[in-house]
């Protein structure tokens, strides 16, 4: 049996799939009514947003306090390596460089999703002021009309960009050469040979 290398701890996998479920519910409750499928979506939308917000808060604290947060952030070195790998893909003379635990593509996807999720959470949190909840009554006058408009534009732009981003994320997760990473997000591990083939073990 091939040796297994832990890539994602159980709590991180739970966070990933909880986030995925929340984002899909939020997108369905946001866009299905626009596409003509009418239902009472507001309560499901904001309640799911609250669950996502709590999950993200826990993830941020865990990443900053208990994990090496810089392992997933894009650095200038990653950009240089990405350029080298692009040259290697296009020319036999190029030299491919193996990444550490995460490739430039994986780090870039994480960064983009981070920006978009934080944008929808912050603007969505502000928009909840205009919705009656068990915790407060709505107050549409908390910001000016122009300020609310800006909040709604940012929320909508991030949500629309998430449509494209999630499509690409699912596409790459299903590509044959990336299936080992999808399995690692389900079961937690890569095999030793998968790690050696795709990663620099010294920088794992």
């Amino acid at each position, binding site marked *: 049996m091939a040796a297994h290398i832990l890539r994602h701890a159980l709590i991180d996998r739970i966070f990933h799939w909880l986030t995925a479920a929340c984002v899909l519910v939020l997108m369905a409750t946001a866009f299905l009514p626009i596409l003509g499928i009418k239902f009472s979506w507001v309560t499901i939308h904001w309640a799911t947003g609250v669950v996502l917000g709590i999950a993200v808060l826990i993830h941020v604290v865990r990443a900053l306090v208990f994990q090496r947060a810089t392992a997933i952030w894009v650095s200038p070195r990653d950009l240089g390596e990405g350029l080298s790998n692009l040259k290697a893909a296009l020319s036999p003379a190029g030299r491919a460089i193996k990444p550490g635990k995460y490739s430039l593509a994986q780090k870039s996807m994480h960064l983009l999703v981070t920006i978009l999720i934080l944008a929808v959470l912050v603007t969505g949190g502000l928009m909840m002021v205009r919705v009656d909840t068990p915790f407060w009554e709505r107050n549409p006058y908390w910001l000016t*009309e*122009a300020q609310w*408009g800006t909040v*709604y534009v940012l929320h909508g732009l991030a949500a*629309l960009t998430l*449509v494209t981003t999630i499509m690409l994320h699912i596409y790459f997760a299903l*590509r044959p050469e990336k299936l080992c990473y999808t399995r690692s997000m389900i079961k937690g591990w890569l095999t030793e040979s998968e790690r050696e083939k795709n990663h620099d073990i010294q920088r794992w």
Partner: protein
Amino acid sequence: MIEVFRYSSDAWGQRSLAGMSWDLLPYFFYAGVAIIVVHLVAAWLLKRRGHSDQ
């Protein structure tokens, strides 16, 4: 002409910004489709040339 923003009228009849136009939704969807198709073609071409698409 594509509308980028939605507008509404406030209590005094003045036009105010209401958010992004939802007419843009298909464009973001098809942008995703286009990127996927381009990547599929590029990966296929690179595979034919004998390179890894990593």
